[in-house]
């Protein structure tokens, strides 16, 4: 059974169809890159998989380990192991990062029928992961993402990914707003989380990110569909020839 199976997905926003029958299969341990021009529907796909409100699925299905993902609330999806690293992580003033991490971590464990982790135990765990990702301890005491730089926000996403140990990670435009050094730190963090039981879907506009996170498969999206799939060499091809060639295909 595939980890993620998207079949003929059709999605509308405000009476406008964004995805017109998109299909995608992701197996455990695989890294997929989804590339495409702005407005091709890449972010819509990531939002629909995570369960963001405001999207109307008018056709098709999304199966996660064979279960109907579209029937689940966003928090149920998270507990099942779906993780979306946001393109623009939100700032939450007044909610201390450490408190947020523990609440989320324990909510997921509770939903899976596992015991909750006590504060000291959890603190130790977070500190270990933060150290590995080069995240300063004082960031954990601040409001979630409040006053964080672009790079810090992305590292905070990867910190959560490392803590929650999801089986499907969707990285939505992880490279946006990052300079080359910040990008390298973020990509190193992601690479450290590669594991046989974990799949990743890397959504990006630019080939650049794929120099750091090497995908097994590359899919090109245009106008709400996957128009071409191939190996990692497809990304380089696109870098040379651009997305214009796919406009007609869509």
């Amino acid at each position, binding site marked *: 059974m595939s980890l993620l199976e998207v079949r003929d997905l059709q999605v509308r926003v405000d009476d406008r169809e964004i995805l017109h029958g998109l299909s995608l299969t992701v197996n455990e341990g695989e890294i997929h890159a989804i590339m495409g021009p702005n407005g091709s529907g890449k972010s819509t796909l990531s939002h629909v998989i*995570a*369960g*963001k*409100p405001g999207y109307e699925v008018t056709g098709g299905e999304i199966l996660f380990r064979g279960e109907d993902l579209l029937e689940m*609330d*966003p*928090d149920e*999806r*998270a*507990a099942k192991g779906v*993780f*979306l690293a*946001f393109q623009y*992580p*939100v700032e*939450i*003033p*007044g*909610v201390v990062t450490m408190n*947020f991490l523990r*609440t*989320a*971590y324990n*909510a*997921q464990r509770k*939903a899976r029928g596992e015991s909750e982790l006590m504060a000291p135990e959890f603190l130790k765990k977070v500190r270990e992961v933060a150290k590995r990702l080069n995240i300063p301890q004082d960031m954990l005491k601040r*409001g979630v993402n409040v006053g964080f730089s672009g790079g810090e926000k992305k590292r905070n996403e990867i910190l*959560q990914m490392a803590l*929650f140990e999801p089986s499907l990670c969707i990285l939505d435009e992880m490279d946006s707003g990052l300079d080359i050094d910040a990008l390298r730190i973020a990509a190193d963090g992601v690479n450290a989380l590669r594991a046989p039981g974990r799949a990743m879907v890397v959504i990006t506009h630019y080939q650049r990110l794929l120099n750091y996170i090497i995908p097994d498969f590359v899919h090109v999206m245009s106008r709400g569909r996957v128009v071409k799939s191939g190996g990692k060499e497809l990304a380089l091809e696109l870098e040379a020839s651009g997305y214009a060639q796919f406009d007609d295909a869509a």
Partner: protein
Amino acid sequence: MNVVIAKSETRRMESDIFTSIRERLPGAGKVAEGRAQAFAAFERAGLPYRRLEDWKYTDLRVLMREVLPLAAAPDAEALKRAEAALASLPAIDASRLVLVDGVFAPSLSDLTALQTGMRVQTVREVLDDAGNAARGDLLGNGAVSDAMIALNAALATDGAVVTVADRTVLEKPVHIVHVATRSSAAAYTRSFLTVGNGAQATLLESFIAAEGAKSYQVNDAVIVSVGDDTQLQQVRLMSDSVDAANITTAIFTVGAKARLTTFNMTSGGGLSRYQGYLTFAGEGSEVSANGVNLLNGRQHADTTLFLDHAVPHCMSREVFRAVLDDRAHSVFQGRIIVRPDAQKTDAKMMTRALLLSDEAEADNKPELEIFADDVTCGHGATTGALDESLLFYLRARGLSEKEAQSLLIQAFVGEAIESIASDDLRDVAIATAQRWLEMRG
């Protein structure tokens, strides 16, 4: 026509209430005369209603309708129920005064080992002491003329009179607890706190209901004098029964170079009004007046603050938050008066309401009356729902809808709660907010 008849019937009933209980009220001679005058003032005005600008959003003729008879003095059974209710209070080591249905209950209070420099009496004992020349002043309301405090002066049965001597730093907070045990009856209380020059004190006030106490009325007055170079922190937690009415008037007079922090949290009461009158009487002082309303069902809670910058070089900050669910209604009125002499005044007021339901209502009425020309004054108000993008972020991380809402609500009210300097009392306020969130189910 019908309305007029109904009104006069209500008034006749109110008049009967005073006549029938006069003899139960402490204080003879001048005190009794003062009560009769105060009651006459109340009778002339009647219950405040919407045509009075200060009561625009809280029409007591509609919401309260009538003045209930005075609650019977607590008997052994009432005291037992009150004692059980005290278990819900935070475990704070304090000098505790408990008033049950408006009467001081020594058996439930803890006034042992009072610190030197601190004096505690009851209003009843002072009023009944014919030799005390100051007793006549106890029922005066200073410059405040309001029908509800006039009613309080007429009917007040008891309260605390706490004096902190100059340069005394209180080690423990003073905790005044109001417990209601009777249904469909009223309690009138009035307390005094005088904090001397250079002294430091903390006042905690709690309003709670014994199990089964319903549809009662509370009318409380707190009259506070803050000396020069004095620090006072006040925290008030109102958790009355959700079908009770609580009308409280707080009058603060602040000396020079003093610091006063007030925090009021209203989570109980079906109808409530907290009206605070704060006056700067000395230069170089700072006041921080903050509050949180946590309301659901059909609760109506009104916070009205009058801040009088009567002298120059004073600073005031007001931070107010309301969280409203169901058909709840929150009112915040903040008037700042800057007198002609009060140059270099720095006054700011910020109020925000969070609506969790389409049917909830928040009214904000800031009023700035500035008569001096070299001042910094500002106010802001916002009303809105929880941010959907924040909710989705939290839910995508595994929090249920309720958990995500709770976390964001805690953060929202946290901005006002953070003003409480004492760690213990801040934790008490946070715990009260958390309990409210858990009760939302």
